[in-house]
């Protein structure tokens, strides 16, 4: 024991002396390293190029897709919508003859809203179940965990609704069919400034949600760039039920509107308590508001507020109405944006499978990357070079029991 401390110091000194910068491993795939270098903004190590080819898919007359989403836990309703949307798309595709004569089947695992479970589920899907493609998840943290595993194994992955920009930066096998947080934050900033002519806005963000924080960052930046003023940023935690303290502080600054980029489960009550405290100004929000429960929880208080979303179920387009009625028939209830996006993601995957020459990871990936102007329920999908979807957003106004379309904001 006496000799322990000197030995430890010697070892540490030795190590410090021997430290050096890691040399970059020679990249076998020059395309990916260039793309990734763009995406990651100059980190020294090369991104993980797929180390191996994925295990050969189970040979059979069916094509197996994998889904990992949160069916339990705090985001359960989102996961359930996602699963429903995917299953509906696959059912329709199978009824229309499948892909090249093969039926599509899906294996759905619950990741409980935790990244380690998401990684476990995806590893199982890839290595045990031998799926050819992964769909999921909603929360960006889970998608990040899943993307890392999928990219390393060379299995393409499409996330229907993860909006954090870093998800697709994981590698060239990762795609998304929704717009990203930077765009959505910009949408409401523009709408607030140009359509509602607001100049002073307060922000109430959900500190427990990366999505909410991401939107707040972008919104505050864009709104001030456009000449507006942010009176202050308050926070709450998902799961809280009493926001009066934050709202009282906000009230003092007398904003013309409050940006609340949170989830419907809290936003509804926030609206009520705001009205109760005498704050009559409209609220602004993002796609986290999208749920039937918003109206129940918000009552009359939330009416007259606005939020950005991926689609509007009232859109008279016959394709969208057919989707809405099919979904209602199968699952009861109007599909929310997450179900629509999941439906689109599944269809993009099916489309790629039809176009790909074989079911190898690379072939499917290349086919997905070529998606241009794909007619999705939540807007036309064109994937850019960062594998994100370039789409417009809609702004909806909350009414009595449903929301009305107000305008579309293009990127």
């Amino acid at each position: 024991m006496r000799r322990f401390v000197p030995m430890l110091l010697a070892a540490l000194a030795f190590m410090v002396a021997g430290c050096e910068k890691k040399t970059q491993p020679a990249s076998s795939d020059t395309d990916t390293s260039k793309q990734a270098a763009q995406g990651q903004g100059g980190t020294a190590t090369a991104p993980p190029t797929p180390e191996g080819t994925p295990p050969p898919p189970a040979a059979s007359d069916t094509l197996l897709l994998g889904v990992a989403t949160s069916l339990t836990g705090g985001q359960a309703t989102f996961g359930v919508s996602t699963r429903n949307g995917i299953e509906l798309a696959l059912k329709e595709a199978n009824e229309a003859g499948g892909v090249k004569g093969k039926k599509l089947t899906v294996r759905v695992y619950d990741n409980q809203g935790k990244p380690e479970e998401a990684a476990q589920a995806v590893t199982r899907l890839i290595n045990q179940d031998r799926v050819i493609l992964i769909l999921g998840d909603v929360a960006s943290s889970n998608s990040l965990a899943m993307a890392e595993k999928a990219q390393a194994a060379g299995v393409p992955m499409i996330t229907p609704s993860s909006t954090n920009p870093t998800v697709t930066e994981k590698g060239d096998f990762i795609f998304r069919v929704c717009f990203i947080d930077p765009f959505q934050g910009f949408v409401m900033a523009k709408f607030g400034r140009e359509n509602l002519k607001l100049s002073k806005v307060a922000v109430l963000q959900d500190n427990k949600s990366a999505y909410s924080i991401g939107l707040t960052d972008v919104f505050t930046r864009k709104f001030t760039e456009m000449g507006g003023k942010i009176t202050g940023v308050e926070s709450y935690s998902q799961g809280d039920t009493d926001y009066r303290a934050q709202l009282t502080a906000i009230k003092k600054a007398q904003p013309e509107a409050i940006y609340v980029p949170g989830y419907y489960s809290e936003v509804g009550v926030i609206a009520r308590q705001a009205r109760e405290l005498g704050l009559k100004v409209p609220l602004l929000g993002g796609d986290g508001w999208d749920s039937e429960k918003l109206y129940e929880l918000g009552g009359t208080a939330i009416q007259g507020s606005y939020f950005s979303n991926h689609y509007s179920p009232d859109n008279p387009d016959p394709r969208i109405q057919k989707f809405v009625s099919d979904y209602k028939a199968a699952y009861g209830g109007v599909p929310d944006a997450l179900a629509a996006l999941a439906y689109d993601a599944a269809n993009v995957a099916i489309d790629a499978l039809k176009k790909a020459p074989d079911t190898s990871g690379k072939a499917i990936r290349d086919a997905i990357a070529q998606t241009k102007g794909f007619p999705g329920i939540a807007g036309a999908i064109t994937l850019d070079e960062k594998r994100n979807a370039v789409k417009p957003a809609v702004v909806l106004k909350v009414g009595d029991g449903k929301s009305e379309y107000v305008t579309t904001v293009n990127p």
Partner: protein
Amino acid sequence: MLRGVLPVLVALPVVILFEQLLAAAPFATYLLSIMGVNIILAVSLNIVNGMTGQFSIGHAGFMAVGAYVAGVLSLALKEVALSFLPVAVSDQVFLLVALLLGGVVSAVCGFVVGLPSLRLRGDYLAIVTLGFGEIIRVVVQNTDAFGRALGLSGIPQTAGLGMVGFWVFLVVLVARRLAGSSHGRSLWAIREDEVAAEAMGVDTTGYKVRAFVISAFFAGIAGGLFAHFVPIINPGSFTFVKSMEVVVMVVLGGLGSTTGAIIAAMFLTLLPEALRSAFTVMGAEGSLAQKVDQIRMPVYGLMLVALMLLRPQGLFGTREIWEVLPRWLPRRRKGLA
């Protein structure tokens, strides 16, 4: 001295070999890594809840501390390597340093949390440990360096089965040696009757705090390992629910039994996967399998209640498997006995 270190020297090549053998099976590797982390958590919690008879329900908080500290260090040193070692070995060395730092910081937290609460009656420890877990969560969520709510990603994924297995071995070794030592006997005494132990001259607060610190250290190690094979860590992985899962493992295995904790941890890690496989075979995957995941939590709750009412000693009570097994096996009569 050699007798003390020998098992470790033997274990090292064994775990390295183990890792190489399973290199071609990523799912098994991942699952076993998770299992290893759970075993470390269960065995370390057993030292406090089992051997010392205290009630700590914030183990996930210490795990979080270890995970984030080790993760941040590894992230900072991502580009650095030791020139005189091959890269793979250098990675492991850095991993080890990160783990140790995480463990030490976690142990310090254990000291800070344990000292005030262990001075008092045991019930307070439960609430304080719970509160501690929450404080950690709030700190992480408010600190950009820890990734806030999104989490910390990009941590080099250098923890293979070798490193995990090594630490599993180490924690079991420490726990067993502790249980059999005079130090451990003081812990058992505190568990049985704290007042009597104090009367016999055992510095109960000191021993309790020491046990708590050791336990926190290993929980920090477990967290550090976790951060190095899971692609991203965020506060959602270290909630009260996680703490409860570890408590269930310890109680199920038997409060005080190291092997019990190991077996319970293995069982509860593998159970969801086994159920998934079972459902796939039965063709009943989809909604039924998903319902099972939902039911898991209330079933754990009921299991705790049922265990306490019917078999509070869990699987093995305070004994180890080799003490219990002979009794379960059919006995062979020797001679006249």
